[in-house]
C-alpha cells in the first residue's frame, strides 16, 4: 500500500529527483508533483553568481581570499510584517504562487509556473515573481476595492528591451460599468542587478465595487518580474495626482482572456478545502486500497 506523506515540500523533492511518490496527502490532499517532472533547470540568474553551485565540487572555493578586516554592518530591527500590510487590500502581496489569489499565464494564456524569488537586490523588501519558461508573463492579482479614495501600485521589472509591460486595474464602478484602468509608470525607476524596475501607480478619488484585479501583461521574451503589489485606501490629504475614475475603456482582448481564465479557476474551486486546487483528488476519507476489501 502506498503510504501518504503530508510533507508538501518533500513531495516536490521526490518529484524533482524522479522518485515515485504514489500518493501525497498534505493540506491540499494528493498532489502529483511539480509541473515539469523535475527536468527543467530554469536558469535563474542569482544575484550573486558566486553563491551558485561550485563547478569544482570538493575544492574549497575562494579559499585563497584573505580574511577581511572590519565589515560595515549594523544590527537593525524589522517588524514581523512589512509596513502597510494593514492597509493593503491585495490578498497575496507576497506573490506566493501556492495561493490561488495570484495566477500567472503565458502568452497563450496557459498556466505558467513562475519563479518565486528573493533576490538580493529588489525594489522593496518583498518577494519577486519572475517569468520562467515560455513566452509572455501575464499575471492577475486579486484584491478588494477599498471603500473610498484609493491607490493601486506595483513594481514591474524587465531585463530585456522588448515592449514595455502593460499594467492595469480591472474593476467595476458604482454604476456597474466595467473599467480597465491603465497604471502607467510614474517615473520612479530602479536599475538593479540588470533589471530595470519601473513603478506603476495611480490614485483615484472614487471607489470601485467588490473585488478588483491588478493585471500585468508582459508579452514576449522575458524574463519579466513583478513585486510589491498594493491596493490601499488613501488616508492622506488630497494630492494633485489624485484623479477621478477614467471613463471606462473596454477591456482589451488580453485582459479579458486573463480575467476569464482566472475567474474560471476560482469558480472551479467549490469543493472541500482539503481538495488540491485544479486537479482530481482523492480525499482524506478515501483510500484506493480499501475498496478492494469491500
Amino acid at each position, binding site marked *: 500500500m502506498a503510504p501518504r506523506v503530508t510533507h508538501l515540500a518533500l513531495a516536490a523533492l521526490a518529484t524533482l529527483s524522479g522518485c515515485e511518490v504514489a500518493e501525497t496527502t498534505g493540506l491540499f490532499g494528493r498532489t502529483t508533483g511539480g509541473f515539469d517532472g523535475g527536468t527543467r533547470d530554469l536558469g535563474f540568474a542569482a544575484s550573486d553568481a558566486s553563491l551558485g553551485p561550485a563547478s569544482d565540487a570538493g575544492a574549497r572555493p575562494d579559499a585563497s581570499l584573505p*580574511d577581511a578586516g572590519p565589515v560595515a554592518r549594523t544590527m537593525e530591527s524589522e517588524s514581523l510584517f512589512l509596513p502597510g500590510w494593514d492597509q493593503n487590500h491585495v490578498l497575496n502581496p507576497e506573490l506566493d504562487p501556492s495561493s490561488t489569489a495570484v495566477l500567472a499565464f503565458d502568452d497563450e494564456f496557459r498556466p505558467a509556473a513562475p519563479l518565486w524569488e528573493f533576490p538580493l537586490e529588489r525594489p522593496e523588501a518583498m518577494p519577486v515573481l519572475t517569468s520562467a519558461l515560455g513566452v509572455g508573463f501575464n499575471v492577475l492579482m486579486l484584491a478588494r476595492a477599498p471603500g473610498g479614495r484609493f491607490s493601486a501600485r506595483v513594481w514591474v521589472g524587465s531585463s530585456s528591451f522588448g515592449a514595455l509591460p502593460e499594467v492595469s486595474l480591472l474593476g467595476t464602478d458604482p454604476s456597474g460599468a466595467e473599467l480597465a484602468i491603465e497604471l502607467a509608470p510614474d517615473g520612479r525607476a530602479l536599475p538593479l542587478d540588470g533589471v530595470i524596475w519601473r513603478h506603476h501607480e495611480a490614485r483615484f478619488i472614487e471607489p470601485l465595487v467588490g473585488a478588483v484585479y491588478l493585471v500585468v501583461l508582459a508579452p514576449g521574451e522575458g524574463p519579466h518580474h513583478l513585486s510589491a503589489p498594493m491596493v490601499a485606501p488613501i488616508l492622506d490629504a488630497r494630492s494633485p495626482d489624485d484623479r477621478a475614475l477614467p471613463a471606462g475603456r473596454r477591456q482589451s482582448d488580453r485582459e479579458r482572456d486573463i480575467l476569464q481564465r482566472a475567474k474560471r479557476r476560482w469558480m472551479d474551486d467549490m469543493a472541500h478545502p482539503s481538495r488540491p486546487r485544479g486537479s482530481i483528488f482523492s480525499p482524506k476519507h478515501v483510500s484506493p486500497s480499501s475498496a478492494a476489501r469491500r
Partner: protein
Amino acid sequence: MSGVAGAGELDPGSGRLVLSGVRTLDLEGTFPASSGGFEVRLFGFGRELDARESQAAMRRDPHRSLVGGDFLSVGGEVPLTVIELEPQGAALSRRRVEVRIWQKAFGTQLVAKLVWHSGDFAAFYGSGLPYGTHLLAEIPLFPTGRVTSDGWRELSSGAVDFWLAARIRPLLVLEDQQLGPHALGQAAFGHSARAAVDGLELLDHGPAEVPVQSCHASLSCGPSGACLYGRCVDAAARHGPNTPREHFREYLSRMAAEYRLFSGSRASVQALASVVDRVRALDASGAAVPELFAAWRRESRALADGHYNPRRWSSRWPVSLGVCTLLGRADLSEADAELPLVYDASAGPLAGRLQPGDALTAIEGQPPLEWLAEQRENGSYNGDPRGAAAILAMEVIDRAAEEGARMTFSRCSRTDVPCSANEREEIEVSPPQHLSLLWAERPPDWRFDYVDCDARPRPAVAAQSEHYDYVGWRDEGSVRLVQINGVSGSPSWSADVDRALAGTPSAVLLDQRRGLGGTIDGADTLAARLVTPEQSFAMELLPALYGALGPSRSALRTCTQGSPSSELACGNAVWWQLGFTQRNGRSALGANTKIAVLNYLDVSGNDYVSELLRHRGESTRIFGPGPTYGAFGAIVTLPTRGFELEGGGSLQIHDTLFLRDPADENEDFTTGRGVEPTVRVLQKQSDLVRGVDTALEEAKRWLRE
C-alpha cells in the same frame, strides 16, 4: 531588537556576529561538519550529498559571512539541509532550548523547521518516502525581527523542551521555500537560487517543563505540555511555536484583518470579532503562546466557513489506525444512543479487534460526541456547527489516538433486539499501547493503514467507486438510482450525468453521501436536470462589499447581467442562472417527480445541489444525519506568511443569494447554514450488522409510496 537575552550580538569593531549560546555552530571549516556537537547533512535530489559534494556548499567570503569567514550556501540544487542538533550524548535532553539561526536570501529563502523524527530520518530526506521513520512533530522557526544592514535575518524556534518527550532528538531542517509551491505545480524551481546560512546557536532556557510520562486525555501534561500519541510533549510541538507574545498579537491582527477583508461570508465576518476576542481573552489570561495557536484553531470553528482552513503552525504525519466510523444509531444497545459505528476496519493490531457494527460507546469514559466537542481544535470540520457531529465522527478514532485516549466499543451479536448487558461484549482499546511503537526505531507499517470511509455501507449502484469523477446509475423498478461523489463538472462526468438522468424516470434517488463539491458547471449540470426554472431561478454570488448591500448589489447585477458572459470582472460577482450549462435547453424532470437525496458528507458544490433540490418542495426529500456544510461560494487558497509551515490556509470569497424567480430580491445570505435533511436518518447498528443501508432503504420506501 537587539539585546535578546543570551543571543549573539554584533561586535561593533568587526561587524561580525559573536555567538554566545550554550552551543554554537559558526559553520567554519570542512565537511563533515560535526563540530560543536552538531552534524550537518546536505541533501540533493534523491540522495544525501557526500562530504566532497557538501564541501562545495561551504563558501568562504569574509566580507559577506556573518560569523567568521565561511557560511553555508544551500537551496536550489541543495534543497534540504538537516542539522542534527544533538546527535551524540544527551546533555540537553531535559533542557528547554531555543534554536536561532541566520539566513540571507540570494534568490530564495529557506523555511526553517524544528523537527522530531522517530526511526531513520535520513532515508526519508533523501527519497521523500516515509519508510522507516515517522515525523512526530515539526514547528516553523519564526523571524525574531533582528536583521543586519546587509540583509541577514534571524530566525528562532522559541523556547521548547529540546527532546520530544525526552526521547526524540531534534533536527533543524532548512528547506528551500520553492519546494512547496512547486509541489502544487504552481511554481517553477530555480535550481541555481541560493540562501546563505550562518550563526547557529542554542540558547538554554533552563530545565525542561513538561513531565516525562505517558499520557491520555484525563492525565494532564502540565501547563507547557500536550499529549501526543500517548506521551507528554511540549505544547509548542503540538500546537505551534512559542513566539514572543507581541508577535503572536500582530499575527492575530493580520489573520483577522485578512479574513475581514476577503471572506465573502457575511455571517462569518460577523462572528469574527467574537472569535478574536476569545483568543485575546485567553492571551490576556496569560495562556502560553502555543495554546493561543490551538485556541485560534478551536475558536475559528465558530466562523462556520466550510471553506476555511486555518494555516499550519505545527504538523505531524497523521496516523490512521485503520478504522472507519460514522455517526449512527446504536439500536442494539439499550440506550439506543447516537454513537460512532464501525463501518470498516483493517487487519491492523487495533483495528483487527473491531468489526462493522461495533459501537464506540465511550472515550475516556465520556460519551464520544461530548468528548469530540471538547476537541474542536483538532478536527477538520469548519462548516455549519449543527453538522459537526456526523463529520467529526469519521475522524474520532484517529483523534482519540492522537490524544492517547482509551476507547470502549460495544458489540452485540444479535440483530433483532438490543443485547442485554450479559450479551453485550465490551472491547477496550488503548491506543497508547499501540502508538508507543511510533516512538520506536522502526515505526510500524500499520500507521498508514487508511480505510475507505464512506457513509454508504454498501453500494446503491452495482459498481461502487470512490473516484471523485464517478457517476453510477441503474434502475431498480421504477426508481432511478444515481450515485456521485462530487460535482466535478468534467466533460466525462457531465456526459455521465446526462446519461444517468436520461429518459423520464418516475422517481430518482440521488446518493451523494460523499459529496465533496466541485464546480459551478458541475452543480449546474446536475441541478438543472432535476429542478425546473419555475422552482429555482438563479443565484447571485457576491464578494465582500463595503457599505449597504443594495447599491453595490445593484451595480454588480448591472454588470453581470449586462455582459455576454458572467466571467467579466464585475467585482468578482457571479450571476448564476440555473441551467446555463444546458446549451440545448433545460430538460428537467417533472415538477412532481419524486426525488430522494441521500446526504452525509456534503460541501460546497454539493451544498448548492442540496439547496436547489430543496426548492422543489414536497416532491423532494433529503435524508441525512444533519445539515450540509453550508459553504456557498468559491474558495481561495491563502499565501504562507510569518510563522507558517508551507501550504497556507483557505477561505471562501463569496456568499450566495438564492433567487426563486426574476422578481426575488432575497437578501438572506446562506453561508454557515447548511441544508437540513427533510428526514433525519442515521444508520442503524442492527442494519449495519446485517449489511442493510438504513438511509437507502428509507428513501426507497418513500419513493415507492
